[in-house]
């Protein structure tokens, strides 16, 4: 399996995901600088976390219109798997790969802590090594992670099983106190309709080594290797 990681000025999780993915794949992903207009052949493209272009205008807006993202969008529409984490999720909504938008956190604070997530759809290339309803722990670190979509979009996400993860308590309960940022319906991550694009605010790559406090992100990378190799 070949993976490519897009690097923008201000990306800061690009090396974390390269290490985490590399461990599962067995070889290092190709790092692609934002000015590059050619993307090498890849089975998986990662849009990593960070603060691309300083979050100018809106988080993700500048990166969404960079030349390399045109190529990423074209590949995604042709079926290539795209994993968009944190700022990458914001970029993916801004360029129309995923529906909805990430607003400022409802408490107006930057949230940086571990959260519990419930796996809502384990029948995708990203999540097949999780169990349905399994509770996992990933860290979040964001200021604009408050997922919002209009009622019609929310309905279609539900109808098409596009919700990937929801914020929950340690037993999988979905009360509002388990929601760190005010996201609609406790949504932490969503798929596109074809399930080849996953965007999520929590960081699986920061939960892929027991030395860093947890390993719950590892099954995501193992799932990708198993389904895309």
């Amino acid at each position, binding site marked *: 399996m070949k993976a490519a990681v897009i690097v923008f000025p201000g990306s800061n999780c690009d090396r974390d995901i390269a290490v985490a993915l590399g461990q599962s794949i067995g070889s290092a992903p190709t790092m692609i600088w934002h000015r590059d207009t050619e993307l090498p052949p890849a089975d998986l493209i990662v849009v990593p976390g960070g603060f691309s272009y300083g979050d100018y205008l809106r988080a993700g807006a500048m990166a969404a219109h960079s030349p390399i993202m045109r190529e990423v969008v074209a590949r995604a529409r042709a079926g290539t798997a795209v994993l968009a984490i944190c700022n990458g999720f914001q970029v993916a909504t801004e360029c129309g790969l995923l529906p909805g938008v990430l607003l400022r956190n409802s408490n107006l604070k930057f949230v940086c802590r571990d959260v519990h997530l419930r796996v809502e759809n384990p029948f995708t290339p990203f999540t097949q090594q999780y169990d349905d309803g399994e509770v996992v722990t990933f860290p979040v670190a964001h200021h604009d992670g408050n997922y*919002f979509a209009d009622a019609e979009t929310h309905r279609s996400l539900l109808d098409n099983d596009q919700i990937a993860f929801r914020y929950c308590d340690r037993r999988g309960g979905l009360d509002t106190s388990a929601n760190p940022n005010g996201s609609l319906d406790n949504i932490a991550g969503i798929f596109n309709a074809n399930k080849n694009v996953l965007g999520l605010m929590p960081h699986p790559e920061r939960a892929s080594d027991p030395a860093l406090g947890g390993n719950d992100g590892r099954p995501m990378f193992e799932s990708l290797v198993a389904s895309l190799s």
Partner: protein
Amino acid sequence: MKARVHITLKPGVHDPQSKAIASALKGLGFGGFDDVRQGKYIEIDLADSDRASAERIVKEMCAKFLANPVIENYRVDIDAT
């Protein structure tokens, strides 16, 4: 010719910043208002001297990039001076 662009969140989009501003204003003793909505203001100096085409181009800028149509409305004013 100058374009003045006002970008505001659509009604119904939860806006915690505006709520915080309203509550701070009340804390400072100001009253006599029901709601506060904050947004962005962008000025663009245009080479175009034709008002209609300037307005069309700036609206296209808003729709494609300056505003996110999922959550934001925009208003374009063209100033001839």
